[in-house]
């Protein structure tokens, strides 16, 4: 997707929607003679800049909206205190115990199977799949997850990928408890990275590093190989590329949509009344995020498995990606914004400024010719 010469600090973005979204400086339609005032009047550009400072649709996608405090009077406050005691004093230790017990069972079954049976042993693959699904169920239980699945469950078939909107890494756990997906994920440091390298490799997960542009080619290749395979676990991709706050969707990366196979959309919507499941990775580590979930009452969400989509003739991968994003956004009640999620980590490419500069420069030169 990126040009060969791009440095890691700039990104070539899918330009289709961004140009429609950014307003062009208003130049009068019919070319007229150029006056001093036309050059001094930079008000449209300043207005756009101030508009962006005051509110912009990109930052809105990553805003965690804390729920309104409701414990503000004499009888609600003690109730809330009681709630805190129950959540931190009773539920949390109980959940930690469940989680610990789950891990013990998991490792006591996983380690023997992993090391004793051969690499491509069918039994081993089946057992590891079931074990991963089991540990994910344990995780979900540890937050008292109430998850409603709608639609037909994913089946293991070749030539299909699953795409879902992304709110937190728990999306993966929620989907994984139902089906052992092979997910494509950003490499994480710490204990998460450890789990990624050891356990999740066994279900066929693929890792990459956002900041390595070469990783993209490697991932694309691995992805293609995986989808050809017959009894490999179905691939799950989060095409937004980053966690968004479950009110908006950012643009989908086209990688998942140019593989020439079926794309099965999955929409996930969390109910914020119980807990805000958005993982603001800049503000919280994943461990803190899990602790926050484990000290809340419940994680309630809906998962919709939508109808598999195929690329239509004459449709580009970007258009296909947008069409699927539309389906997911409508189903989960999310608003679409035309920004690339990676703008969280990289600056926009200067090419987009150049377009505006070009329009203005041509207009000035043209009007200079007018008498």
């Amino acid at each position: 997707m990126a040009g060969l010469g791009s440095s890691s600090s700039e990104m070539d973005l899918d330009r289709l929607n961004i140009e429609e979204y950014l307003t062009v400086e208003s130049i009068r339609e019919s070319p007229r003679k150029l006056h001093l005032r036309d050059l001094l009047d930079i008000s449209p550009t300043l207005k756009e800049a101030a508009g962006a400072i005051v509110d912009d649709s990109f930052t809105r996608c990553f805003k965690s909206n804390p729920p309104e405090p409701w414990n503000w009077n004499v009888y609600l406050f003690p109730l809330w205190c009681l709630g805190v005691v129950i959540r931190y004093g009773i539920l949390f230790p109980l959940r930690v115990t469940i989680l610990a017990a789950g891990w013990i069972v998991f490792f006591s079954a996983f380690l023997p199977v992993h090391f004793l049976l051969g690499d491509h042993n069918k039994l081993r693959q089946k057992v590891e799949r079931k074990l991963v699904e089991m540990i994910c169920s344990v995780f979900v239980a540890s937050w008292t997850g109430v998850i409603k699945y709608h639609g037909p469950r994913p089946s293991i078939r070749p030539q299909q990928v699953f795409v879902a909107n992304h709110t937190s890494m728990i999306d993966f756990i929620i989907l994984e408890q139902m089906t052992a997906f092979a997910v494509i994920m950003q490499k994480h440091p710490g204990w998460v990275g450890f789990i990624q390298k050891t356990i999740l490799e066994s279900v066929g997960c693929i890792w990459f590093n956002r900041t390595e542009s070469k990783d993209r080619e490697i991932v694309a290749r691995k992805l293609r190989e995986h989808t050809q395979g017959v009894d490999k676990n179905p691939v799950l991709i989060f095409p937004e590329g980053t966690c968004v706050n479950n009110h908006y969707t950012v643009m989908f990366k086209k990688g998942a949509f140019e593989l020439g196979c079926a794309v099965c959309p999955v929409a996930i919507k969390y109910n914020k009344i119980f807990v805000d499941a958005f993982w603001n990775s800049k503000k919280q580590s994943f461990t803190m995020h899990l602790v926050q979930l484990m000290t809340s009452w419940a994680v309630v969400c809906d998962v919709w498995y939508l109808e598999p989509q195929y690329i239509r003739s004459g449709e580009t991968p970007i258009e296909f990606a947008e069409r699927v994003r539309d389906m997911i956004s409508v189903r989960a009640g999310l608003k679409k914004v035309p920004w690339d999620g990676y703008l969280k980590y990289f600056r926009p490419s200067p090419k987009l400024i150049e377009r505006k500069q070009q329009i203005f420069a041509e207009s000035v030169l043209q009007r200079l010719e007018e008498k």
Partner: protein
Amino acid sequence: MGNASSMLTQYDIEEVQEHCHYLFSQQEIVALYNRFCQLDRSAKGFISSDEFLSIPEFSLNPLSQRLLKMVDGLNFKVFVAFLSAFSPLATVPQKIELIFKVYDVDGKGRVTFKDLMEVLGDLTGSFMSEEQREIVLSQVLKEAGYSRDSPLLLEDFMKVLCKPGVTMEVEVPVD
């Protein structure tokens, strides 16, 4: 006023409102404060250039570097005063004054030919050469009765831009 992480008191709101000549309502000032705290991620009491540039729409603006010189490091009160020129209640002269300040970014009180060249350079990038910009600017200045050797003052800007005026309004989203 306290640093950005403290809550805004009624006194603070009134102080900020007075400083911006009552061009924003109290609700708008509270909304701007929430926005300020959202952008000032490390709660330093001002927004750094990097934090401004993390707004993609701002980063893509041709005048972003010039504006950064004006907004980088402002505390909340001055930040609101800067934005007050974009209020629908601001008068045309107030808006023209802001445009003048963007040109005269080093605050010397006059806009030289060099300043005009810099802004035109930001707006046209590599699509016009230095010579072309010089020719264009010299020509329009001459036609308007100015010369490239004498700098423009605020009253010159007022004269050139006041008819038919400038519209430069931004709406502050109030929850």
